[in-house]
């Protein structure tokens, strides 16, 4: 399943892509951020030291969401005033990808969703209601976040970012949605809040003294 190895243009370490649609990855050796250009890799930046991590998930963790197996391929890390969280990029079997977010051990799986028109950030307030794809959502949190770093494979180019605002929404049935205002056009992700045990995660990080 792994794609043929290429070499890191910075340090020469072999770079493997586990997912054919990955656009970006990081060199596990020198932390260079690498962009796929046809068969070549181009270094666009380097990841500064990541903050001490508390997530039990890591690249290579596998699990199950709604009867589909997935493997964690990469992540984006965000910081905000009250902590940090990870958006883990998960690659699903048989194909497609989604995001598993871990914010203070509250887990949600979301998929990129199409709905139009999406509201402008300035017009959104906590408590506002939206219905996308027949699910009614209520805005619960608006977070001013800072891009903190990336690791592993991502489905799009994502580096050199500064701030990003996220609008989180919930439904009465346990649905979860995020509006991502990192770019000029908002992007909608919808999915579900998930229970840690229900994900049946394997190859988790080990924490000393905990099993």
């Amino acid at each position, binding site marked *: 399943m792994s794609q043929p190895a290429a070499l890191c243009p910075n340090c020469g370490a072999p770079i493997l892509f586990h997912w054919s649609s990955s656009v970006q990855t990081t060199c596990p050796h020198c932390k260079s951020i690498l962009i796929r250009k046809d068969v070549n890799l181009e270094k666009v930046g380097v990841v500064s030291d990541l903050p001490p991590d508390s997530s039990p998930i890591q690249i290579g963790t596998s699990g199950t969401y709604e009867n589909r197996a997935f493997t964690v391929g990469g992540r984006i890390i965000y910081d905000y005033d009250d902590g940090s969280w990870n958006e883990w990029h998960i690659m699903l079997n048989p194909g497609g990808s989604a995001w598993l977010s871990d914010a*203070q051990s509250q887990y949600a799986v979301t998929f990129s969703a199409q709905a139009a028109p999406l509201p402008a950030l300035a017009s959104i307030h906590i408590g506002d209601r939206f219905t996308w794809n027949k699910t009614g959502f209520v805005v619960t949190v608006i977070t001013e976040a800072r891009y903190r770093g990336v690791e592993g494979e991502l489905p799009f180019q994502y580096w050199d970012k500064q701030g990003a605002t996220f609008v989180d929404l919930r439904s009465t049935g346990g649905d979860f949605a995020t509006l991502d205002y990192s770019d000029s056009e908002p992007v909608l992700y919808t999915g579900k809040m998930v229970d*840690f045990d229900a994900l049946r995660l394997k190859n988790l990080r080990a*924490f000393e003294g905990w099993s």
Partner: protein
Amino acid sequence: MSPAAPPQVQSLTCPNCGASLTVRSMGRAITIVCGHCHSILDAKDPQLRILQRFDAATAAEPPAIPLGSRGKWRGADYEVIGFQVRSMEADGIPYSWREYLLFNPYKGFRYFTEYNGHWNDCSVATALPEAQGISVKYLGKTYKHFQTYTATTTFVLGEFPWRVTVDDAVAVTDYVAPPYLLSSEMSGSETTWTLGEYINGADIWNAFGLPGAAPTPLGVYENQPSRMRASASQIWFVFAGLATAVFVIFTLSQLFSGREEVFREAYSFSPSSTEASFVTPEFELKGRTSSVEVQTDADVTNRWIYLNYALIDEDTGQAYDFGREVSYYTGVDSDGGWQEGSQRDRVVLPSIPPGHYYLRIEPESDASLGIIGYNVTVTRDVPVLGLYLAAIAALLLPALLVSWRVYNFEQMRWAESDHPLVSTGGGE
């Protein structure tokens, strides 16, 4: 699993007093409180900026579950990493409760709350509750509004994955569906929903290996399940079953009862007569021991007659004495016609053995009422309704008792709420 990460218990030093700080939540702490000098520190700041210092003497009670305690809870290990005391005021009286923050690096956070020995196991709600009038609906269950109040933090210890300082105040609303408790906490424009479940202190003592026994809870807590409530529905179920059985037996005994007339005779009584009493001819009660009905039909209209009866066993001489009054009055007054009493009287002697019997009858009346004719009929083996009613009443008693206790429990629960049930004192 991959190789273990380096030891996760970081050692830091309090910038105020230099005491060493133990950090247990692996980079998730936002607030750390120095256990020595009670400085509240910003865990996000590498310098551990001091956010606040507070006087710990005001709430210096030690946590019942010490920080660092580990226990197995709902299938996973949890460690107590934070402790806070919060309080509210109702009718000018302050109430405090304690919250224990628990952490597992995989499953995250949950917390126990304790008030007067009542414990709740709380975690963040996964779906959004929706308002339904004064109640809310959460994942298909309706929660009744219990109370709305301001909760103020008065004491903190350990670490928290959120910002906390002493005197922080949030608007809390509690909704209950025992044993569950759904709370919303509003600070600024953000609302956080928490789902709690009522648990026994003894289970915590067990899980965390605490010394001694969990203190006995005082009073009734807002989401405390009524153990009586389950038994009440059970007991009513059993009552319905037994009452049906009694009814069926009664019906069958009606159908199959012998109703055997063993004696009938007409008499007349002249109040002026000197004869005080007389005996009837002998009659036989056959078969098994059974009930005996004595029926008196007297020609009394606006008159009365009193009959002293004795049913006497000729062989043993045993007498069953009883007196019956037969009276019937009728007339017309401003409200129209009225009547009172009956010309017929029935009495059942529940358990008379077979044998040869006779009645001794001693009638009384008023001389002015003239001659009164009456018939006496003796029937054996008649169904005794009263016994069945007594049986039903005996069955009803425990059911009523339990229901009464359930009612009292709910009274006590809601007395502490914004919506006390209407009771004897004062009213709304």
